[in-house]
């Protein structure tokens, strides 16, 4: 995991970890499943989480033991397994192996390094983290990421061949939506199309049951054509991390009453003007992503306020 640190943001990483946050962390960020429909965020426990959550937890000085997982980098992440082996074991060893076996077969021969237990199917750059090899991460320095901002650099997403089409499609939808006034039918329709695409990526993943009015029975939601646990997991964990990072960086003298997926309720005024610091890596990348999509950088918008208060 240490070696993947620099690439964790631009990767599909899913891991099982044991973790322990310092007691002064107000909003721990690692999800733990309580039952089929409930997750909570304790100070310590065992969690199935993504690479984003590891990056954020480590920045909050969480102590993590990686118990197992999978790492699949983005196409343009710059990650190269052979490059990594060259750095770790010496260029001459790799060159010698390439000469002897040819590069195609070499991938199968890099197994002596216990981290690379097995290549995952056709993902040539993917790696399994072996379950019986426990690795401990204790501070931000333990991830090989000297320039952490570089990890979160999203500026070439729109130019990237491997991800450009996601960007272009989303930008088209956002542009169409912004042509119409807020709350209008067409504005809501384009919002619905964009959100439905993401909903379909996740449909059927958690085996949720719904009531079927035709048969009057509950049934498991079947998976859709667009289902992808990689994409769905990446999107939801990115938003959870952006929100959790904002919560942890709020003014400690102000209160946060609750949070709901992509927003929160607070008694602090004027947060819609807030610009993220570069050190707030998720919030900053979100701000830049909004800038690429709409031309205007924004992090938070105020939906409404209530002078009377609320029941929480």
């Amino acid at each position, binding site marked *: 995991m240490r070696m993947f640190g620099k690439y964790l943001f631009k990767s599909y990483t*899913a891991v099982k970890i044991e973790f322990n946050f310092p007691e002064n962390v107000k*909003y721990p960020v690692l*999800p733990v499943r309580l039952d089929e429909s409930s*997750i909570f965020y304790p100070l310590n426990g065992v969690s*199935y989480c993504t690479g984003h959550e590891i990056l954020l937890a480590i920045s909050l000085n969480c102590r993590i033991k990686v118990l197992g997982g*999978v790492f699949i*980098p*983005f*196409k343009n*992440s710059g990650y190269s397994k052979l490059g990594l082996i060259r750095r770790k074991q010496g260029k001459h060893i790799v060159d010698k192996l390439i000469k002897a076996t040819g590069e195609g077969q070499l991938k199968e021969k890099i197994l002596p390094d216990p981290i690379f237990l097995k290549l*995952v*199917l056709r993902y*040539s750059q993917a790696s*399994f983290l072996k379950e019986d090899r426990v690795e401990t991460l204790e501070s931000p320095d333990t991830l090989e990421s000297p320039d952490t901002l570089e990890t979160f650099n*999203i500026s070439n*997403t729109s130019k990237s061949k*491997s*991800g450009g089409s*996601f960007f*272009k*499609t989303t930008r*088209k*939808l956002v542009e169409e939506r912004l042509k119409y006034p807020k709350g209008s039918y067409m504005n809501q329709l384009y919002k619905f*199309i964009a959100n439905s*695409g*993401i909903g379909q990526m*996740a449909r059927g*993943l*958690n*085996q949720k049951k719904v009531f079927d009015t035709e048969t009057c029975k509950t049934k*498991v939601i079947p*998976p*859709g054509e*667009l289902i*992808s*646990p*990689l*994409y769905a*997991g990446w*999107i939801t964990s990115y*938003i959870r991390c*952006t929100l959790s990072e904002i919560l942890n960086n709020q003014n400690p003298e102000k209160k*946060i009453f*609750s*949070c*709901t*997926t*992509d927003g929160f309720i607070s008694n602090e005024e004027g*947060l*819609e003007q807030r610009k993220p610091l570069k050190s707030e890596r998720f919030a900053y990348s*979100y701000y830049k*992503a909004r800038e690429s*999509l709409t031309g205007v950088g*924004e992090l*938070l*918008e*105020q*939906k409404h306020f*209530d002078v009377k*208060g609320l029941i929480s």
Partner: protein
Amino acid sequence: MIKELVEDTLYHNPMEKGRYDMKNLSKVFTPTGVELSKGLSQYISYFLGSYHGGRNESFIYGLVQETVYDYDLPGAYPTAMSLLEYPN
């Protein structure tokens, strides 16, 4: 636009030797599915386990009698989707 979105997503749904792809994912949940899909089920369990929905939590309970403000990340999920790239 919708067609492009569908093609983008379908393009990289992996298949194990032509047996199963992601749209037949429900079969992986059965004992036979796990046996047949071999490599796929080994890594897919991590991704299924690490998929959680949004963070919904109450930090303070009871009656609050002061001005409260409701903030939102604008266009959260589409913004996250714009950052996606194909796996390597």
